[in-house]
């Protein structure tokens, strides 16, 4: 058992591009669910529409990279508007149903054989990230002793954490303002907000668009860091992992989704590496009859579920949450 490898795997996941994608997506969910109380179960839909907006613009239509970024982000905004108009006047559950369905519809359309010429079918699209890769100023990778990153990852980490920092700054500035106060009030009781002369529908729509834009950023960053846009990446599991990350960190807290994503990936990668080592080799730590190598890659998700349950029981407010707020719900 080499614990250095376990720590390396855990840290490179927690600091690496994958955690950044989840942090961005979870920041969006934090605006939706944490602050406004909107149940968006289709964050992967906002990601996929922005990702394919960029990929299709650059690869299929052969247009400039930056135009692709704009198309992708506009796609996320448009999706928020289309989803919001029919559902935001209704009860919260309707948005949940519509968003999860829409994200699946989008994923299936992007992967459909019929649209292979546009979206590339199940293999997706590649070759849109050249401008992004050419901007990489680093000469090589970096080795920090216990953790190391390749040249590409180093560039993605720089861009990604900058995006996360700017997003957090924006969320912080907005949520301390009277605008943020209206959102939090809508989360508590929208009729009370209405009775005080606020246009609740407009605020919910603004929140849906803002969170969707963060989701779109996550999608674009996701395909840029790996250089390919694959439809199956944007399945519903993604949304739920992002929710898990948000709840671990603490909803309605600026750094909740960021720290939550880092912890989420630290644990997923660390536990995965631990069990993979514990079940492999000539004389494995865990005997074959107890756990095989194939099972080892799945056990982490079982532990993840268990951990989420324990979190909800013993620290329902997440890491950054305020215990007093939860106490109010218990009354």
């Amino acid at each position, binding site marked *: 058992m080499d614990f250095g490898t376990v720590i390396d795997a855990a840290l490179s996941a927690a600091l690496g591009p994958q955690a950044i994608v989840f942090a961005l997506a979870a920041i969006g969910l934090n605006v939706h669910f944490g602050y406004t109380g909107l149940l968006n179960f289709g964050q992967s839909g906002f990601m996929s529409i922005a990702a394919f907006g960029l990929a299709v613009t650059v690869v299929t239509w052969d247009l400039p990279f930056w135009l692709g970024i704009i198309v992708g982000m506009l796609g996320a905004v448009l999706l928020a508007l289309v989803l919001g108009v029919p559902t935001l006047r209704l009860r919260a559950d309707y948005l949940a149903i519509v968003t999860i369905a829409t994200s699946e519809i989008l994923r299936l359309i992007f992967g459909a054989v019929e649209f292979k010429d546009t979206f590339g079918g199940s293999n997706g699209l590649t070759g849109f990230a050249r401008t992004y890769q050419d901007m990489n100023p680093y000469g090589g990778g970096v080795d920090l002793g216990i953790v190391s990153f390749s040249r590409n990852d180093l560039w993605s980490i720089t861009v990604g954490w900058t995006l996360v920092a700017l997003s957090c700054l*924006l969320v912080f*500035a*907005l949520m*301390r*303002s*009277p*605008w*943020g*106060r*209206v959102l*939090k*009030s809508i*989360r*508590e*009781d929208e*009729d*009370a*907000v*209405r*009775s*005080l*002369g*606020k*246009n*609740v529908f407009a605020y919910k729509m*603004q929140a849906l668009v803002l969170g969707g834009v963060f989701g779109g950023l996550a999608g674009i960053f996701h395909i840029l860091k790996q250089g390919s846009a694959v439809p199956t990446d944007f399945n519903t599991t993604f949304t739920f992992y992002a929710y898990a990350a948000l709840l671990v960190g603490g909803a309605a807290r600026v750094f909740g989704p960021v720290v939550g994503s880092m912890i989420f990936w630290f644990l997923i990668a660390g536990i995965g590496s631990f069990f993979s080592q514990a079940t492999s080799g000539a004389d494995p730590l865990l005997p074959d009859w107890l756990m095989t190598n194939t099972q080892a890659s799945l056990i982490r998700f079982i532990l993840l579920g268990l951990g989420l349950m324990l979190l909800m029981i013993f620290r329902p407010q997440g890491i950054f949450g305020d215990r*007093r*707020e939860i106490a*109010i*719900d218990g*009354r």
Partner: protein
Amino acid sequence: MAAELSEARAALAGVSNEPGAPKPDPIVKGSNITRTFGGLKAVDVEHIEIQRGVITALIGPNGAGKTTLFNLLTGFDEPNEGDWSFNGKSLAKVPAYKVARRGMVRTFQLTKVLSKLTVIENMRLGATGQRGERFFSAAFKSLWSSQEDANTTRADELLARFKLDAKREDFAGSLSGGQRKLLEMARALMVDPELIMLDEPMAGVNPALKQSLLGHVKSLRDEGRTVLFVEHDMDMVRDISDWVIVMAQGQIVAEGTPKSVMADQRVIDAYLGAHHDTDITEIDVADLEAEAEAELVAEAEENKS
């Protein structure tokens, strides 16, 4: 103010006691308002007028349509038909938030405080026309901080007036039922409404707090606002209202000053007497008082002749 108040009250003296009677200076005027739930006509109001500058009570048995009428007037529910106006401008099909902006603000039967916001944040939310509530200026504190300070000063004054200043930084969810009623009323005042509509302000409030709540409602009128409230507490109705409208089965069945309404046989039949599920003593008191009043009237008549 005091002169205006006595004028407004005096003006009511000449108003007939018929349901839907026209008032000399109505702030709200509505006609033919109906709302059906399935086959049930919850509200079927032929005509209603609310006098400006006084306290009007809306009473009636459970299920009479009082709260539904509240919801309709404030845009929280849509009527099947009907038109009503506030300050002469029609309010039919106007969404709830616009109704509030025009100066007609309501509270709720089950108080709606925002539990996870502090008391002072609840108050600040009430202020209208906040620059910081617009998305594009929200991110820049310098654009809204001075306005926020002014709102906070006003909120603190109101909190002091409603004796909630000690709770300023507490979560609203930690307040008692009575304090929540106070907070909701104070928050509604942040909107600076002309007409404030209170839905059962006394429900679930202990006797000591009731007295101070009564004082607060009176002070709303004394500072020139119009008050319309729904209440089952007959003591409160008798004590503070200038005019009483009685509803039963969705319709207005009687109107008048508190005294005349409580002596009205139709009201006793529809509400006070037919109200089997309320406290026996309450009905007894009302009956006894009505009897006593009737006797007095009879005596006076005798003395005249």
